[in-house]
């Protein structure tokens, strides 16, 4: 079996969202010397055979110089010579790897990751060498040899602190300047004081030096930090690689009739634009010529397509379904509906910015207590003995032993394991704080269209229609891109119907065609019967007489009912906020068992409702997908969006789930809850360790050897505890059947 053959319907769904060659040409970078480069996201690439087929096929195209796949980021970078764009998109799509364009300023490289890896390497090198020398000291090296070893250690540790420690110094300084506290502050103080004291002792031929403690601590912490970064970046790259929904540009129709593809930012009000069927409207505009149906579900939550004709106003982001439109732009991209949503979102962002991470809250208490203990130890030894060197040594030993190695790892290591677990289930989490916030949620708010439902109509009364008529309807419907037609075609399957002649689609009305003498029409009742029937709905008519009526419903997402029930039982009240009509909302709410719902809401109304819930003391989990949900996603305590959501919604949400099932919400809640428990356990372990170790340190019994053993011991304990989350994940994954295909 080839692991790489994408299923055919997956491909068909992705094909409609392919970037046009004009978009790719606009996005390509000019490298000078006559070559250009484009980076495309190819989410379906996942093994050696995929790499090979993509690279060889692209390299064979004329003008292409190099094509290189990056499997970690699921991207392909193509470089070609000359101004003419090689057929990259169609080649990739033909192979079964539909590409997307993505917004990402950095070209494949990640400076933060490089810095972290460099720091890990330097501190690892230093830790290994210093530990080697320290072991000799612990085994009994004395006198001049010991001093020599200490000096060498000091020399190795200095660059390690400068290069690897810089990350912590920078972070600690930036929070201290704002008068806040985080875990990096005690770490920075601890390693610096340990180094300074050891240097002093080395100069004075002292017996103990803590260079090893200072550098190994840095090494352990950096490993945790690097893993955390890698995991988060993987999630971010996966979200950035999803198909872009907002168009990058539009075909501008000049006064002399010439056509020119321009980026969205260059479109001015008054320009005439050409929007083909299957494309999204780039900016707010008014229709000048043509008729079509628009899918507005992503923009305002209405599930039923809207018919538009000359004179109608259309909003940026809506999808043109059936016919080509000529429109006049009425606003620039910055003042279009999308930009308005961004402004609303910025205004609404609140609860999230105020949230302080658990680790920061713990360290805000922890650091003063530790530093106070060290100070009191110093004072106590001064009063008891009067030997200031001895007093400082013991005080710094207290600082080192309490230096939150275990605490610094306790939180990130659990979050790394949890993020990985979510990643395996097709859920991307933006950062660790999001997981903590999700575990706190006590109310859930859902959008309807595209979130609880798939935003795709389904034929409900197929059994009431005679099979022969259904076959005829399906034959006609196959000629149309209208979602209602596609629902009929999908329901009826491929049937050998009559031969059609003169089939044409009338955008906004329906499809008509002839078989022999009969004229069949599928579409709006009023049009199909030439105005004789005065009813709403979709019908099949023969020579103006209705022969079949079709009823639809918006298909609910798989797992929606179970998810709603689970949330209502475990989390708190579940609400549905929708921009759709009351009737559509009542039906979905009834089907899914949601008692509390509101319909016909504007984006600002959704934000207002979430803020009202927040005022009542709820921490709201918002799940939504549309442009109109983006402000609400930003306002909620924690938010989730499906991969099919509008770009802005995906960026605003804390979690993005790739599979179509809504059970991702409960999975994420479950993992976040368990991660939260493990984090608390880990913090408890770190505190218990301190309760035992601190008295020993205060009494002056901690030698560098004891410090090294105690610190490594507690770190290993904390990591082992975090890995328990992974073990249950494996068992869970083995019990489940193979993961469903990732939605493009």
């Amino acid at each position, binding site marked *: *079996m*080839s*692991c*790489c*053959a994408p299923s055919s319907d997956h491909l068909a769904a992705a094909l409609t969202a392919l970037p046009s060659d004009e978009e790719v040409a606009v996005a390509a970078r000019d490298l000078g010397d006559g070559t250009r480069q484009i980076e495309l996201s190819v989410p379906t690439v996942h*093994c*050696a*055979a995929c*790499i*090979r*087929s993509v690279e*060889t*096929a692209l*390299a*064979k195209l004329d003008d292409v110089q190099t094509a290189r*796949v*990056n*499997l*970690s*980021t699921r991207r392909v970078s193509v470089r070609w010579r000359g101004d003419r764009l090689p057929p990259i998109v169609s080649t990739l799509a033909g*192979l079964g790897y539909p590409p997307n364009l993505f917004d990402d300023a950095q070209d*494949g*490289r990640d400076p933060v*990751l*490089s810095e972290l*890896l*460099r720091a890990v*390497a*330097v501190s690892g*090198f230093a830790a*290994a*060498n210093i530990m*080697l*020398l320290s072991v000799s000291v612990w085994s009994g090296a004395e006198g*001049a*040899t010991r001093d*020599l070893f200490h000096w*060498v250690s000091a020399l*190795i540790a200095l660059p390690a602190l400068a290069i690897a420690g810089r990350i912590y110094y920078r972070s600690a300084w930036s929070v201290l300047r704002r008068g806040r506290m985080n875990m990096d502050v005690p770490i920075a103080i601890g390693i610096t004081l340990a180094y300074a004291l050891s240097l002093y002792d080395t100069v004075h031929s002292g017996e103990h030096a803590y260079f090893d403690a200072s550098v190994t601590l840095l090494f352990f912490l950096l490993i945790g930090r690097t893993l955390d970064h890698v995991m988060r970046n993987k999630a971010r790259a996966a979200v950035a690689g999803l198909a872009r929904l907002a168009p990058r540009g539009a075909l501008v129709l000049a006064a002399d009739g010439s056509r020119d593809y321009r980026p969205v930012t260059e479109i001015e009000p008054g320009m005439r634009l050409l929007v083909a069927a299957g494309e999204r409207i780039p900016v707010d505009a008014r229709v000048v010529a043509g008729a079509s149906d628009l899918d507005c579900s992503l923009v305002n939550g209405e599930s039923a397509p809207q018919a538009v004709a000359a004179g109608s106003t259309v909003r940026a982001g809506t999808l043109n379904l059936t016919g080509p439109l000529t429109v006049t732009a009425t606003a620039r991209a910055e003042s279009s509906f999308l930009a308005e949503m961004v402004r609303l979102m910025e205004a609404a962002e609140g609860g999230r910015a105020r949230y302080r991470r658990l680790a920061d809250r713990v360290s805000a208490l922890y650091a003063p207590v530790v530093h106070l203990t060290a100070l009191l130890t110093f004072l106590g030894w001064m009063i008891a003995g009067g030997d200031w060197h001895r007093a400082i040594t013991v005080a710094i030993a207290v600082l080192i032993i309490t230096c939150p190695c275990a605490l610094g790892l306790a939180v990130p290591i659990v979050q790394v394991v949890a993020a990985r677990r979510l990643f395996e289930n097709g859920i991307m989490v933006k950062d660790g704080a999001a997981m903590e916030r999700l575990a706190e949620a006590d109310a859930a708010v859902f959008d309807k269209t595209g979130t609880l439902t798939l935003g795709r109509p389904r034929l409900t009364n197929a059994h009431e229609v005679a099979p022969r008529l259904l076959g005829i309807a399906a034959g006609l419907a196959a000629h149309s891109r209208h979602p209602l037609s596609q629902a009929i075609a999908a329901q009826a399957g491929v049937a050998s119907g009559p031969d059609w002649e003169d089939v044409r689609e009338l955008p906004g009305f329906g499809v008509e065609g002839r078989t022999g003498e009969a004229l069949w029409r599928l579409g709006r009742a009023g049009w199909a019967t030439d105005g004789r029937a005065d009813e709403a709905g979709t019908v099949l008519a023969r020579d103006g007489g209705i022969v079949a009526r079709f009823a639809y419903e918006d298909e609910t997402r798989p797992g929606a009912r179970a998810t709603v029930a689970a949330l209502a039982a475990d989390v708190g009240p579940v609400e549905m906020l929708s921009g759709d009509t009351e009737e559509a909302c009542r039906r979905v709410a009834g089907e899914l068992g949601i008692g509390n719902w509101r319909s016909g809401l504007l984006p600002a109304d959704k934000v207002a409702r979430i803020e009202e819930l927040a005022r009542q003391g709820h921490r709201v989990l918002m799940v939504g997908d549309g442009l109109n949900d983006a402000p609400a996603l930003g306002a909620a305590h924690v938010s989730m969006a499906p991969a099919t959501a509008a770009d802005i919604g995906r960026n605003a949400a804390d979690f993005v789930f790739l599979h179509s099932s809504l059970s991702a919400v409960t999975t994420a809640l479950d993992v976040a809850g368990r991660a939260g428990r493990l984090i608390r356990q880990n913090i408890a372990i770190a505190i218990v360790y301190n309760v035992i170790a601190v008295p020993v340190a205060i009494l002056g019994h901690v030698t560098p050897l004891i410090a090294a053993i105690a610190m490594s011991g507690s770190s290993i304990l904390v990591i082992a505890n975090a890995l328990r989350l992974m073990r249950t994940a494996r068992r869970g994954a083995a019990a489940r059947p193979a993961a469903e295909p990732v939605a493009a």
Partner: protein
Amino acid sequence: MSILVYLIPVALFLGGISLLAFLWALRSGQYDDMDGAAQRILLDDDEAGGTRADERVIL
């Protein structure tokens, strides 16, 4: 104990070489695509240009 005068620098030097090698590898982009590197070992170089694009390796 005078042997230490040679051995410690030698040990540090050798360790330092591997550190520099790692930093060089990092800078030259060898850590940019860890998953890809793991898979590319399965590809045969000598077939470049010899296979049709639609042929797929059965792994």
